[in-house]
């Protein structure tokens, strides 16, 4: 029969072991939690590793050491070591080749520790172990644990050390991969802390700001402020306080800016589109700002050249059109036969059509480059509508009916541009209602706005087409394009003109029953 007291001791021991194991499991669990938590700082993760290593391996001090470019071990993070030791200790370069743990059970008695022995003893390190941090194809560094007393590593400690080392290695591997990816990006990326200091810049961003590397930027952070000249889209001086990153630091949730920058040393200037957005902590407070810089120099130059080309091309196209039209009209006057007069009239009509197409292309290029300028003046909108309707009535068979019940008639707008919109909407109404004989133009005032509606009884359109009708180059389908002609630019231009005036433009329509195009303008 077993001794009852001995049995109890056995149980107590079992229980103690069990607690120990539970504690270890918990330790490892919290460690993995620290790694998984995406937004934790790398320093915090290292700290979690080091404190876990100390507790699980019963050590007094611990460190994560990483090989630098030259193969020397450098402290990445540490816990409990003195500054003197960190500065003074020289690790053997041979450690790089050692893929197995290096265990020193008793510093004092060890014969192979030469120069470092004194420093180790001074630091109170009586035993230590170096465990390799193995990546897929390289050794990143070592996990080091230090003991104040001589220490013999148990199998269990060896196993735990291996688990922790593996986790650190995979973290380092991931980080290296992340930075590798960031450095490989064509876009520049910088991260600012909440004080605005740049705490990370990838290779592209470092180069763009005039540094060889991010490390160099850290050493000399003012350079890019003092040595760069910033300009805005229109060539004016760009105030660095308006940089998107700065604006996000001041509370904006997103900022974007197109900036031209030039190194004052005389390098060529570049155009860069900067987008900035904040990163918040768990409590929703601003933690960091990420800036993404996309170089658009080539695209920008190309667009500028395109704009110049379109404006000179349209000038070049209009000059011969002017000559053609002039001669056609001279002939029209001198012709005796009605038949020839009719033909020449057709020619003049087609010249006008070509001219309108050229104008439309020019307008679209202006809209796209943001150069559509408005010359606002006060004028009587009803009078303009009447004039436009009268002009169009001369060359169309549809009856253009005006319905007007407004008292205030003054608007402050670009008269010729609004005339263009009216002309476009009424011409479209006529063009797309070949089987009908009338178009109704009504004018109403609605609070501070004036609303003009152009109603036709033509082919109408589906609700799907209504959504895209104001897009450039849109026409319902090829059949429409072939039977009605045009480039599909008129409504796009009209909508841009109305929007630029602070008005709205919209359409209501039903297929086969006709359409109503409406726009509003603020009354003067």
């Amino acid at each position, binding site marked *: 029969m077993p001794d009852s007291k001995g049995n109890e001791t056995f149980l107590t021991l079992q229980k103690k072991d069990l607690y120990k194991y539970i504690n270890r499991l918990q330790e490892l669990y919290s460690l993995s939690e620290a790694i998984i938590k995406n937004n934790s700082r790398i320093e915090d993760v290292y700290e979690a590793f080091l404190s876990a290593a100390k507790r699980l391996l019963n050590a007094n001090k611990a460190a994560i050491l990483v090989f630098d470019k030259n193969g020397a071990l450098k402290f990445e993070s540490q816990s409990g070591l003195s500054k003197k030791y960190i500065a003074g200790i020289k690790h053997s370069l041979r450690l790089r080749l050692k893929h197995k743990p290096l265990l020193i059970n008793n510093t004092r008695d060890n014969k192979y520790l030469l120069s470092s022995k004194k420093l180790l003893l001074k630091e109170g390190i009586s035993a230590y172990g170096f465990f390799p941090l193995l990546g897929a194809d390289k050794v990143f560094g070592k996990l080091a644990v230090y003991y104040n007393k001589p220490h013999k590593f148990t199998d269990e400690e060896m196993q735990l050390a291996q688990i922790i080392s593996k986790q650190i290695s995979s973290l380092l591997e991931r980080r290296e991969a992340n930075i590798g990816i960031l450095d490989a990006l064509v876009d520049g990326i910088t991260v600012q802390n909440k004080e605005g200091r740049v705490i990370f810049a990838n290779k592209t961003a470092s180069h763009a700001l005039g540094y060889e590397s991010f490390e160099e930027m850290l050493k000399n952070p003012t350079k890019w402020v003092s040595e760069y000249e910033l300009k805005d889209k229109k060539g004016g001086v760009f105030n660095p306080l308006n940089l998107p990153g700065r604006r996000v630091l001041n509370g904006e949730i997103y900022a974007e800016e197109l900036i031209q920058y030039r190194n004052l040393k005389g390098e060529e200037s570049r155009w860069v589109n900067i987008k900035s957005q904040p990163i918040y902590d768990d409590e929703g407070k601003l933690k960091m700002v990420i800036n993404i810089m996309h170089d658009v120099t080539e695209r920008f130059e190309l667009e500028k050249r395109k704009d110049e080309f379109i404006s000179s091309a349209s000038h070049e196209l209009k000059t011969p059109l002017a000559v053609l039209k*002039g001669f056609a009209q001279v002939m029209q006057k001198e012709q005796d036969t009605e038949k020839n007069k009719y033909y020449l009239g057709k020619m003049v009509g087609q010249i006008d059509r070509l001219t309108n197409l050229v104008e439309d292309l*020019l307008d679209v290029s202006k809209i796209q480059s943001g150069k559509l300028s408005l010359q606002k003046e006060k004028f009587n909108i009803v009078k303009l509508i009447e004039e436009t309707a009268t002009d169009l009535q001369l060359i169309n068979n549809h009856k253009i009916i005006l319905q007007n019940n407004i008292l205030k008639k003054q608007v402050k707008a670009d008269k010729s541009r609004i005339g263009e919109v009216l002309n476009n909407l009424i011409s479209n109404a006529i063009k797309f209602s070949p089987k009908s004989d009338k178009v109704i133009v009504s004018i109403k005032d609605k609070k501070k706005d004036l609303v003009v509606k152009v109603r036709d009884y033509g082919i109408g359109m589906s609700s799907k087409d209504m959504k895209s009708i104001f897009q450039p180059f849109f026409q319902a389908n090829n059949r429409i394009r072939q039977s009605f002609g045009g480039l599909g630019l008129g409504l796009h231009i009209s909508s841009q003109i109305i929007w630029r005036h602070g008005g709205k433009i919209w359409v209501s329509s039903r297929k086969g029953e006709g359409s109503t195009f409406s726009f509003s303008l603020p009354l003067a």
Partner: protein
Amino acid sequence: MKKILVCDDDEGISEVIRIILEGANYQVNSLNSGHAIQKKIQQYEPDVILLDMWMPGIEGKEIIIMLKRSKNLSHIPIIVVSALSNTKDISRKYGADDFLEKPFDTNKLLSLVEKYAKA
């Protein structure tokens, strides 16, 4: 007979304007550049000047400024005839009397010239 000076580097434009205006009994002289325009205006004494904007050498806007500053010539009406889409703004900005966008309507050209030749 009223005298009109057409200043345009495009021969087609000069010719068609000349034919249109001669058909309406005007006397027309053409210049294909702004070179020495001041001297030529003094010789020719036109009643109206039709001026293109884009020309090699002296540009239209410089000619307007120059003529409008000159004591003897500032009274001669200048009508800008241009294919630039901002013809209206440019002619206002530099002090031209009126403008006509290319391509123009024959009747519009005639009525404009008539208006300023009479005055």
